[in-house]
């Protein structure tokens, strides 16, 4: 496979580092004159710091939009080739694409195509997902026959019972509420904090130009 030359990698890493440091300093220091002591001069300085961040964010939005355009163009090219090889479903995809574009141009603001085709299909998938999740949950004890698997199933049963509108199950409903408010919230926050810490370390790695996406 093609490997990028060393000079190219160094250039990419250096560019990544410069852009990363500029963006983070601009986002953290910009638009806050208090950091520079206040006054008219501090205002101007804060705005100067904010400018590179704004420019980079606008560039990012343009790149994101372009990536969608390129992605769609690539999708159309791939499926056009497939049609040439007699793939029927690719023909259906191209026809749907042309139909949706035509619909949007001729009936601006009309979302009935989305409501009558896309939403029912997604609803059907969501219903299927519900059954899949119940079946998957039921199989967990076969898959994880340990204390945590048992705990998982017990919590699911308690929460399901607690959601039933039966007065006899009021104590279970109260316990289920407590379960969702305290232990589940605590666990969820712990997971999210872990993800945030991981994101920071990955962010620093990208900022230093040492991420694999930059190094090649």
């Amino acid at each position, binding site marked *: 496979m093609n490997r990028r030359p060393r000079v190219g990698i160094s250039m990419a890493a250096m560019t990544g580092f410069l852009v990363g440091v500029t963006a983070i300093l601009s986002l953290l220091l910009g638009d806050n004159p208090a950091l520079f002591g206040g006054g008219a001069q501090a205002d101007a300085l804060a705005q100067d710091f904010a400018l590179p961040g704004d420019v980079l964010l606008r560039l990012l939005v343009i790149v994101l939009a372009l990536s969608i355009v390129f992605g769609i163009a690539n999708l159309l090219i791939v499926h056009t080739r497939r049609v040439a090889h007699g793939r029927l479903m690719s023909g259906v995809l191209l026809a749907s694409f042309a139909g949706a574009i035509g619909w949007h141009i001729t009936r601006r603001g009309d979302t009935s195509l989305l409501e009558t085709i896309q939403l029912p299909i*997604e609803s059907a998938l969501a219903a299927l997902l519900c059954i899949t999740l119940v079946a998957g949950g039921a199989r967990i004890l076969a898959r994880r026959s340990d204390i945590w698997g048992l705990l998982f199933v017990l919590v699911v049963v308690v929460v399901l019972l607690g959601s039933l509108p039966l007065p006899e199950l009021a104590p279970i409903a109260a316990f289920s509420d407590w379960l969702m408010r305290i232990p589940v919230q605590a666990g969820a926050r712990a997971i999210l904090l872990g993800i945030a*810490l991981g994101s920071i370390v*990955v962010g620093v790695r990208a900022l230093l130009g040492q991420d694999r996406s930059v190094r090649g």
Partner: protein
Amino acid sequence: MDVTTQQVLSILFVLATVVLVYTARFLQSRAASRRRLRPMSAFERIPNWSSQAIEADRPLHLAFGSASIGEDNTATALANAELFHHIIEKNSAGDTPPALSTSAPTTVPLASAKVDAAWTGAGAELNVHWYPQGKRALGYAAGVTAVIGDDTPSAHILAGSFGAELGLILDSARRNRQGTLAVSDQLEGQAVAYAMADEVLIGEELFAAPAYVSDEGRAAADAIVMDVWRALLMILVTLALVLGVAGQLPWFSWQLLAVVVVVALVLGAILWTIQRRRDQ
């Protein structure tokens, strides 16, 4: 806390992370002070799946989900790319390159760059599937299910941003007797992964994954930095809880916090040195 204090603390936090990353890399580069990572069964399965894929001439399926560059889960996409790079590299002994899938347009170039950079084997036909669904990803799940039927991957490594739709993919893989490893930065997806995947990673374990699938010291060092921050966070949360219960929280100050952090770091360094001497 006012905006200025937040900004100053953010800059200090980033700088402290940079210092920690370099310190951990320096220590990790010295064999005597190298720290072993805690074992995780999920990573022990990956080489087996990779070998099976090579022997059966079938692809591995590596999925980003809706993790994308430029959004709030950019770090997830970058961490996935790092993990997938090492998996693709080790899978290069085969003839069939892995199939990568994503629902985010900005991840497509990242995924194809991974195949381009990491695949050293024969037949590097680009096999990146994009299902343009974004975060409403039921269509993505349906598309990936079709890949499972057509390409018959030997196993699925679903590491990225998934919601409850992950259940459809995992169920389809189970019916086709294909191994699965799943982790998501969304809580719904994480719960489904825990219930239905053969192997599961939780939360930040995704970001530590490169340390387990590569021999690079820097990846292990980054995992250690995450452990250090997590330990500090746990100490601070416990301290805040104790102070809160004792009714002393109004006395809490940033100077006190700085002292606690320094004490925790010194204690950590002492414990680490003792542990290292015991290991020797």
